[in-house]
């Protein structure tokens, strides 16, 4: 591995100062399960690594009426083992319990998954589907970024060099809503998604029709894709297989996958439709149970 400096600030201010001083040559370390591996293979070569795990705000895990605040350094395991988080956000648990092994989940964070900005990041479609906002701090203060705007290219985010992801905020689930994330991998664990689909639905009180839906896709484009149209199509539609297929077709249409060692364009286009339909069925099931 290349040589770098390490700092473990204990406040946000200290962290932002360190980042600003490094002029783009710093990376924030949360779980490290992407960053350390990427540094080891030379994919990232920061001169400074800023460990965020000693900053209180990055360790915040709070549930309020407004929703869930998940600090950027909160590990997946800490989050999904939180009974109330698991109860209110089962789709988030779907995602968090798919990121690597249990070992990885003990370190990996949702914030890190977002900042790594891989098209396959399993947490990202779920965050998009749940309408999450990223809270970003820079020298000029805090800004909120909808998660669907956070990743801009493979491995690249909207963060400026001197900005830091503090937390993600996920709104409280509304009545009659449900969400689900599914990905497809060749093995049963430990793989990168060949395709993934995260959906959330809101049903009417009678649970006959969709009120709204949000659908987001993994591994079928340079960034996770918010399939806005696919979700919007469902508003007012009856809950049936035709509606599900309509949305799945729409999701498939916005998928722009590539062929690589993990899958072909055709396989991914096919899978994204299958997964969208299956995730919708799962989300509906959860909404009906809610």
């Amino acid at each position, binding site marked *: *591995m*290349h*040589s*770098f*400096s*390490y700092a*473990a600030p204990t406040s946000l201010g200290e962290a932002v100062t360190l980042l600003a001083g490094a002029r783009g040559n710093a990376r924030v*370390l949360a*779980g*490290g*399960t992407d960053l*350390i*591996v990427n*540094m*080891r*293979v030379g994919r990232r070569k920061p001169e400074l*690594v800023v*460990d965020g*795990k000693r900053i209180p705000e990055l360790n915040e895990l709070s549930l309020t009426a407004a929703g869930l605040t998940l600090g950027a350094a909160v*590990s997946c*395991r800490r989050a999904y083992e939180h009974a109330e988080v698991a109860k209110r956000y089962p789709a988030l648990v779907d995602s968090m319990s798919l990121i*690597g*092994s*249990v*070992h*990885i989940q*003990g*370190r990996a964070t949702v914030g890190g998954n977002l900042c790594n900005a891989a098209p396959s990041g399993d947490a990202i479609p779920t965050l998009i589907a749940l309408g999450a906002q990223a809270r970003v701090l820079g020298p000029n203060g805090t800004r909120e970024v909808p998660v669907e705007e956070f990743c801009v290219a493979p491995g690249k985010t909207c963060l400026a060099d001197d900005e830091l992801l503090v937390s993600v905020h996920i709104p409280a689930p509304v009545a009659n809503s449900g969400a689900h994330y599914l990905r497809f991998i060749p093995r*049963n*664990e*430990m793989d990168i998604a060949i395709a993934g689909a995260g959906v959330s639905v809101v049903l009417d009180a009678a649970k006959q029709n969709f009120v709204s839906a949000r659908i987001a896709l993994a591994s079928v484009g340079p960034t996770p894709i918010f399939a806005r149209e696919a979700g919007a199509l469902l508003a007012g539609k009856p809950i049936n297989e035709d509606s599900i297929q309509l949305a799945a077709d729409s999701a498939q249409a916005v998928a722009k996958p590539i062929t690589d060692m993990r899958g072909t364009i055709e396989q991914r286009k096919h899978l994204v439709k299958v997964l969208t339909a299956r995730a919708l069925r799962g989300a509906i099931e959860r909404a009906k149970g809610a």
Partner: protein
Amino acid sequence: MAKKTHVETTLNGEPREFLAEPRQSLLESLRDVMFLTGTKEGCNDGNCGACSVLLDGVLVNSCCVLGVEAQGRSIETVEGLGTADNLHPLQQAFLEETGMQCGICTPGFLMAAKALLQKNPNPSEDEARLWLAGNLCRCTGYDKLIRAVLKAGQVMAKEAA
């Protein structure tokens, strides 16, 4: 070379200090600095679990942790699990059930299984398989290994009762 940092930890229950360059992983610190070579390297990128240790009681891949991150934390490795004279029930079960062949993955499996049994003392086969999916074994086909973990769980539950 970046300057080395002085790191103070608790290692297998004992206070321990070591020096680490920031780029040295916890795995490297354990093996090449403290010469605790029970923790093994299989892939160095979090995909095989041979380097599994507990960090503040949480199962992690020590290849994906920097040595400097261990400041003020507690680390448990296979060396702290049990000794030849006083084997941990997991170690005993791995021996009795032939839960290993070459043995390179064994320390990682033992530590991962320890974390599992701490959380879930009586796991089902499926639960054990899911939990241990981050530990690769190429010799056993997992059969006897999973049986060993389940047996150790039962032994520990009996001991606790």
